[in-house]
């Protein structure tokens, strides 16, 4: 029986462990991807993902929009990851509980991901290849070699390509 996300949150709050496991199957991979996309190594990413689940456990009954818990988890992971990456972070810390998920996290939903991948394929070069290489986590040096670009230009080119992708997606969403 397929249960929607809000049902799973309510069931987990009521003591249903299988609902929790299903939430984990549904959202764990995207939380991992957000932590890694923020630049965390595997150990820190694992820690941040676990922290987001701990926070959810504590707020299962008070979360504002249970249907949007995927965005809530992604936002929690991103904020925690950015806090962890700060050079001046204290030895002991706690990020604030997310009130409203970042609207941008919606791109992680399945429909959003498929649209994104299609949109990458529609980009001109070097953006298409560059973003495909970014997706498989190829380092800047190898990406530069593959594309025949100077290494120093990879960062700015990536930013420009993401901006193009953003524009393309916004146009497609407006046209829907």
């Amino acid at each position, binding site marked *: 029986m397929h249960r929607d996300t809000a049902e799973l949150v309510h069931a987990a709050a009521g003591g249903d462990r299988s609902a*929790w496991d299903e939430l984990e199957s549904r959202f*764990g991979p995207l939380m*991992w991807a957000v932590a890694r996309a923020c630049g965390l190594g595997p150990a820190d990413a694992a820690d941040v993902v676990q*922290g987001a689940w701990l926070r959810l456990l504590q707020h299962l009954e008070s979360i504002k929009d249970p249907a949007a818990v995927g965005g809530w988890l992604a936002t929690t992971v991103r904020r925690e990851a950015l806090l962890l990456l700060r050079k001046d972070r204290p030895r002991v810390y706690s990020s604030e509980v997310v009130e409203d998920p*970042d609207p941008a996290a919606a*791109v992680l939903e399945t429909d959003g991901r498929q649209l994104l991948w299609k949109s990458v394929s529609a980009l001109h070069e070097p953006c298409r290849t560059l973003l*495909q290489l970014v997706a498989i986590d190829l380092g800047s040096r190898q990406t530069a070699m593959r594309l025949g670009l100077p290494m120093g230009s990879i960062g700015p080119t990536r930013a420009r390509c993401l901006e193009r992708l953003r524009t393309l997606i916004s146009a497609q969403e407006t046209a829907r």
Partner: protein
Amino acid sequence: MINDEYFLAALRLAAGNDPMPSHVSAAARDVYGLRVPQARTADPVECAAIRTSSGTRDDDGSHLMRFVTTGLTFDVEMTVGDGLIDVAGQVLPYPGEGTLVDVKTPHLTLTTRIAHNGQFAATGLPPGWVSVVCHRPGHAPVQTGWVRIRP
């Protein structure tokens, strides 16, 4: 506005090149075992009083935090030494005879009976996520928010 991290995360997911390790998934599922039914949450607060009275002393590995909920305050000092964590604190006002305090980490929960002045302590915890739960007879438990302690 789409934050780049979400965009990059979506690309990574679509490429399927860096799947979540199974131990991360298992740890997330195990989190459910830490559930404290009916618990109220005490949230961390910025507190000038504890900073000026004793200082956060982050330099010597100690750190003070205050957590507050209606009718109950936790002052918690966490000290990191030799890769392990000691947690000492006080629940105010004194929550009464028979009160137990759990100091929880994802891997280990240490339970202590609270002293007459509301103080408690637990030593030798692994670094990472920590939370304190106060169980008062006849009341719903109160749990502090989870905080992360670096070794």
